[in-house]
């Protein structure tokens, strides 16, 4: 396990102290002062952050590389993420939600409309200017990158103003949320989604530049 992290075995005791002991002490303090709930959320985020940094997973870089240089490696990985998440969500919806008394997916659908288009477009533009997407920003702050603290300041400001205006946008452009499974029924919806994503994957995998 230490070789995986890049450490030789002589370094093990020192590595143990700073890589295992201090984090454990930190977890203990968080549990005591902030509660076990917060610890779980920190750990979940921590897992995500670790994976994001290890794989250098950033939508802004991946997407701009596609549009500027035709690189599809990142896009293929995102499609894989979509396929696996969809599968997980289906399993959740059909077998786990009731069992764990959690809300079904239908409640999470958001109303689509022109505001979605504008929001998406501005988000894409913002990502390219800022140099990262919102998750990427958090990951880069963890890497020590000071630029992304400025991005965070922008995101905080923008989110706060955005939330004040979001009601207004919804009223103007919002439509009934459209969620696939009620329209096609579950097996068909799953097959349709799988088919579309697989087709996209094949397209990007085999397109000639």
């Amino acid at each position, binding site marked *: 396990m230490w070789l995986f*992290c890049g450490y030789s075995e002589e370094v093990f005791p020192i590595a143990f102290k700073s890589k295992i002991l201090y984090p454990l002490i930190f977890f203990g303090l968080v549990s005591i002062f902030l509660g076990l709930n*917060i610890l779980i*959320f*920190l750990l*979940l*985020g*921590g897992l995500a*952050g670790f994976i994001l940094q*290890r*794989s*250098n997973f950033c939508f802004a870089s*991946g*997407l701009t590389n596609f549009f*500027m240089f035709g690189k599809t490696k990142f896009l293929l*990985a995102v499609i*894989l*993420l*979509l396929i696996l998440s969809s599968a*997980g969500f289906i399993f959740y919806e059909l077998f*786990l939600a009731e069992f764990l008394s959690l809300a079904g997916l239908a409640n999470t659908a*958001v*109303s*689509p409309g022109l*505001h*979605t*288009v*504008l*929001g*998406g*477009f*501005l*988000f*894409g*533009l*913002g*990502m*390219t*200017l*800022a*140099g990262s*997407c*919102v998750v990427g920003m958090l990951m880069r702050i*963890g*890497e*020590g*990158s*000071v*630029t992304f603290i400025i991005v*965070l300041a*922008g*995101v*905080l400001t*923008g*989110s*706060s103003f*955005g*939330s004040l*205006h979001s009601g207004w946008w919804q009223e103007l452009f919002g439509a009934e949320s*459209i*969620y696939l499974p009620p329209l096609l029924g579950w097996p068909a919806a799953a097959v349709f989604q799988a088919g579309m994503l697989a087709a996209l994957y094949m397209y990007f995998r085999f397109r000639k530049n």
Partner: protein
Amino acid sequence: MAESNINRQDERNNKDERLSFAAGKFSYKTGAVLLAAVNILILLFTGRLWGITGGFVLTDLFQINFPALEVLAINSGVVLGSFYSIKLSGNFRFRGFCTLRRGILVFAGGLLMGYSAQIAGGCNIRAMVNGVSSFSLHGVIFTLSVFLGVYFGSRLARKLYS
């Protein structure tokens, strides 16, 4: 010609191994698989789809809105986890000290991202990845719009930074 490229690639991979940068590096696909697992775990533990910008609405946070605080906790975790990862591979450094010009541009970028995520109902994780994965139409529309935005943003970036 193709053969010598493949040999060079092998040499390169061997060179990479000796760099701490590459020690324990994950490929994008590995990252995708693991992130899908985390995505589902977050749904199971919070009862809501994973999203980032929900934790950055100051008005919600100051009103001690619990869902927003939960998301803030997860976001803080992301920073810590990323820090742990880069510390482990020995590449931590205070980096990215940019010019004033770039600072203004990235602030503007953040402003756009924060604002647009609120009006569209999510950021790249909540609306793009989870919107599509939860079979909702807004996810598809958002994704296509983001692509359009990145396309034009790339052209703008070329003009600004060349």
